[in-house]
């Protein structure tokens, strides 16, 4: 965690999740897990945010909302897909109104699978995202972001790598 020298602010949007991951995102902020002690604040304003936590999959109606929030966030920014629905559509993959994971709309940096994703996994995902944020700030990461529009997101893990399989930074591992 040596690279966490700033206090990143997160913004959360519920794509079309079942609430399970949303309340776990909120649980991260409350006394049991308490990420606020590291200066991580859940903000409602996209222009204040560094990390975008998206839960749930995308559908026709929320695509513009997700895109708007993403575009309003200042660079550098990191997108963390929380839960299996945000990763691939999960149990709702076959639903007629579900178009798949968040990466069909915006480039995703970290995937946190799980149904519902546990607060520990979400915090781990955000911390991994901070590594990506640091790299993006240093300018080492631009290529991957540009590529994201044309082909599948290829993301390497930065910072310390552990054997923890709860959070995969590469989509292939998910």
């Amino acid at each position, binding site marked *: 965690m040596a690279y966490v020298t700033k206090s990143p602010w997160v913004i*959360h949007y519920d794509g079309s999740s*079942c609430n399970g*991951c949303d*309340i776990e995102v909120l649980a991260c902020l409350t*006394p049991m897990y308490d990420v606020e002690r590291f200066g991580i604040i859940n*903000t409602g304003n996209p222009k204040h945010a560094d990390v975008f936590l998206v839960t749930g999959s995308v559908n026709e*109606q929320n695509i513009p909302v997700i895109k708007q929030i993403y575009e309003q966030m200042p660079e550098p920014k990191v997108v963390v897909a929380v839960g299996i629905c945000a990763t691939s559509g999960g149990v709702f993959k076959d639903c007629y109104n579900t178009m798949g994971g968040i990466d069909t709309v915006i480039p995703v940096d970290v995937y946190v699978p799980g149904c519902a994703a546990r607060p520990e996994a979400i915090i781990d995902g955000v911390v991994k995202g901070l590594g990506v944020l640091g790299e993006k700030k240093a300018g080492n990461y631009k290529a991957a972001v540009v590529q994201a529009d044309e082909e599948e997101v290829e993301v390497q893990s930065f910072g310390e790598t552990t054997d923890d399989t709860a959070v995969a930074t590469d989509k292939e591992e998910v």
Partner: protein
Amino acid sequence: MAKRTIIPFGPQHPVLPEPVHLDLVMEDETVVEAIPSIGYIHRGLEKLVEKNEWPEMVYVIERICGICSFGHGWGYCKSVEGNLGIEVPKRAEYLRTIWHELSRCHSHLLWLGLLADAFGFESLFMHCWRIRETILDIFEDTTGGRVIFSVCKVGGVRKDISNEKLAEIAKILEGIKKETAEICDVFIEDGSVKSRLVGIGTLSYDEAVELGAVGPMGRASGVAQDIRTDGHGAYSELESFAPVVETAGDSYARCLVRIGELKQSMEIIIEAIEKIPDGELEVVIKGKNPEGNFVARLEQPRGEAYYYSKGNGSKFLERIRVRTPTNANIPALVKTLQGCDLADVPILILTIDPCISCTER
């Protein structure tokens, strides 16, 4: 007449973790009309019944909502059990009741926290969620999951709770009771809390009946309706309890109803733990498929929920239909928003305890 402006509220808003959109027609600072538009979370999961066999469908139904997940699973199971014409063993019914009431406790604590957050009482929010974590620990201990348990199945339950563990849960609940009493006093007596809640968004008895308000929203306006009193599950064997009813119909009354239910739920769990019989956990269903129609009703933390299933004798149900409480409460919400101040809008939206995931499925 003052000039009218329209202020969009949501779908991304700091107060609500879920997306709901309202167009607020304003005259100066007063809301004249609120036009809700929903559909941001619609997934269409009722249709999945055509792709999942009926015993597996319970996993999908549980994911209608992550807060009252257990209740949805139970409602679906009840409905299919009705179609199959089977009786669930007593111990399973008691365990289901215990988990369901624990879900109600965690849901109401969650709501109290969000309400405190909405009127800017951050420390109260933190305390509510701190206590809630104790209940989530019980869930994790007994089912393995924090929010989605997958412990209910058609014909019974998947896991048992040993009698020693149940006694332990009763002891933990005694502790939680003391802690909640402290924070509930703040909600009931604190002047700054009262100034934000008393007299805000009043819904009269007649309006509540006319608009079909259910659950705590209706009960705060004097509609004494609680599906638990019908005596399904283990409720029929527990000491009869009256619905928690308030008559003022304002936001404060809705808060009081939920506080009352929180305390009542803990009493129900403790009583159920005392009375739980030993026995089988499930009925084995072999070579039988649901046929016919059946409707099951449940009292979810947010109000009455309704589960319909239609079987055709095959492994796939023909149709399921769920009606959730938030859907029924939206007309009442729109009514209470008329004439309120813009600053009170977040609180009024919260007081119906909206669960948009349930509503849109």
